[in-house]
């Protein structure tokens, strides 16, 4: 039985070697998605700082702007960009983020060469939207019929920016969609400047800060309102 298995394994290795020795088709161009820094001097440079050689036959789009999202096809054999698509609508299976472009495709003088791909940075489509849930407990003397509002630095703290949903007697909640990584500053009011929140000692509240992560939940507390002793 063992002899039979060994013979079968050998045959399989031989077959693999025969296949490997046959002429392999050229790999398809690598689709890379990123943000455009510049196209100049025969190179396309991503905002990661990585430059890739352009195929001399490639026609450069006239309306390629700084910071625009692009999908490029890089031929692995020639290490050149053979196609440029501006403002692609969505990521496709197989797309490689410009942050993770293989280093052998990047052109640079030895002194300018990075040893590895960028671990993080600007992505091709910018930050994806995430939903953050903000929960707040209010003082017991909050009038039962009053609404509570979220005010953020997006509107320079307009006091009635987003009406929150009452959860129970003392708790309100709202969900806010933000680009991932957004730093949001916020505070609470009951709808106008006369009834904004105050800190524990009656002073002006320093707005809270959060960094948007998917599924992030805050649990904040309003110490007192400006108009209620």
């Amino acid at each position, binding site marked *: 039985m063992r002899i039979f298995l060994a013979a079968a394994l050998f045959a399989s290795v031989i077959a693999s070697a025969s296949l490997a020795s046959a002429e392999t088709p050229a790999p398809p161009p690598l689709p890379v998605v990123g943000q455009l820094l510049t196209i100049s001097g025969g190179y396309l440079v991503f905002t990661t700082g990585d430059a890739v050689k352009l195929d001399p036959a490639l026609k450069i789009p006239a309306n390629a702007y700084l910071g625009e999202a692009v999908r490029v096809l890089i031929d692995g054999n020639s290490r050149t960009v053979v196609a440029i698509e501006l403002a692609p609508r969505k990521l496709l299976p197989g797309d490689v983020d410009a942050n993770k472009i293989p280093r052998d495709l990047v052109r640079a003088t030895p002194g300018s060469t990075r040893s590895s791909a960028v671990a993080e940075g600007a992505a091709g489509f910018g930050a994806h939207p995430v939903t953050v849930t903000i929960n707040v407990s209010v003082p017991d003397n909050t009038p039962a019929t009053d609404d509570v509002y979220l005010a953020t630095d997006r*509107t*320079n703290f307009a006091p009635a920016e987003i009406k929150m949903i009452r959860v129970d007697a003392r708790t309100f909640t709202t969900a806010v969609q933000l680009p991932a990584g957004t730093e949001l500053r916020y505070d609470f009011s009951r709808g106008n400047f006369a009834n904004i929140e105050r800190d524990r000692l009656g002073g002006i509240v320093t707005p809270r800060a959060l960094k948007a992560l998917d599924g992030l939940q805050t649990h904040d507390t309003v110490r007192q309102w400006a108009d209620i002793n």
Partner: protein
Amino acid sequence: MRAGSIGLFLMSDGSSLLDGHGSVVLRDGPRTIEADALRLNLKTNTLVATGNVRVTRGAEHIAGDAYALDLKSGDAHVIRLDGSLPETLDVRNDDVGHATEAAAPPGAFAIANLGGLRPFLRSRHALIKPNVNVRLTPADVPTGPGPYIRTPSYLYTFAPTNFSQTALPYESFDQPYPLFGTANSLTTGHLLYGSSTGATIGFDQHLVDGNRAYAVASILPLRGKEINLNAFEQLEPGLTQSFNGYHIYGANTTNYDQYQVQWTSPSSRTTFSAYQFGTSNSAQLSLGSIEHRIPHFLTYRAQIIYGYDHLPGQFPYTNDFRIGTDDYVTTPKIVLPLGVGASAKYEYAITEYDFPHEVTTGTTTVTLSRAVNRSLSFLGTISLQQVANHYRDPEALALNADLPSPAFPYYAPDGTPYPGIFAYAGVNTYRTYSLQTTWRPRGGEDAIQVYYTHTDDFPQFHGYGPPPNYVTLDVTERLGATLRVEVARTYDFGWGGTYFVPGWSISISP
């Protein structure tokens, strides 16, 4: 900064960007940057320039195809593509004459993706005060989704200072137009529209001292002639003072002023306030606890108030002293069968006047809540309130309880006469029952809410008092990356001879 086209973009993270295209020139002290395109982040004071970049500082200069600069440190990175291979150069402390070759750190050239965003303002010239403001001359200002309007100049403030306080009266439309500003002050013109004043203009002046103090003055010089002043100052931790006042001039001259000083300690709060309205004025001192929580048992707050009112022409007393107390106690939230959360609150207030009059208010509120799942939740509230006006003089009751004389009864909208004080024993009763149903798919931003409220008050009849039943449908929907809309529709049912009285409410936010 000059360019063939400059766009000011407001980003969803609160930052603002200047995006210049076409022969961009940025002058910053002794430094001049020329490029085909340039993106300046006004929040982080960093910029990225590309295309025929030339940076000059004094007699020295550097050229390249891309350039990233931190304006605070003067450190920069340059990419050159004119050699046999791309090279990256480091510039330290703005020393453009001594750049050294080195790999750029991660994120050195990172910039926001504007991805089809519409600029908030457009211009060809921008004068930037770092960390304070930028003045665009001329400036094209957008009109909603429509075309841009050319204005000679527009000042956009991005200082971290909070200039959001206002002294202008509430108007249904308010388009601010910043005129002048520094890091701590801002002068703004306003185009206003209100149901009472119609279209008018206003101006306000903000002075802000960090989180310690602010003063905002405003004037409506044309219609609705009015001057306002709101000020707040934290004198020291726990001690604050504030002033709010308005003066309406012209045909209907009115004055109102309020001053308040408040001392808050870890366990108590003392407030002195003084009001003046026309020829009437009053002052009061309140001494109270802050909100005390006894874990797993009760939360309470109690305060006593002593006040003085001067009411010229008031019968029988022009000067009236009063003393009262205003207290409440609440239960913690407890969980009942079926996962229903319940809590209760009782509020009690009594005020005794020198004038033979006593007002007592007692309110009981019970709240029941139930989250069925992540998307569906219910909230029910029952509120019972009694307000008792005790006059020790029946004539005073008739005169002061704001009730109709039997000789001149009120008539409801449908013509039914109100029975008058004979049906009134001095106690008003307010009963409110409400149910809120919320549907938020997966707890996200979009939501549908239905509110139903039933009121059963005394007095309440034939259009007098709140409608017995009303329903509100509230829909929140995100329509785009920077547009969230909330629309609410309210119906009253069969009150005052009318049915289905509609009311709209629309709110737009980023």
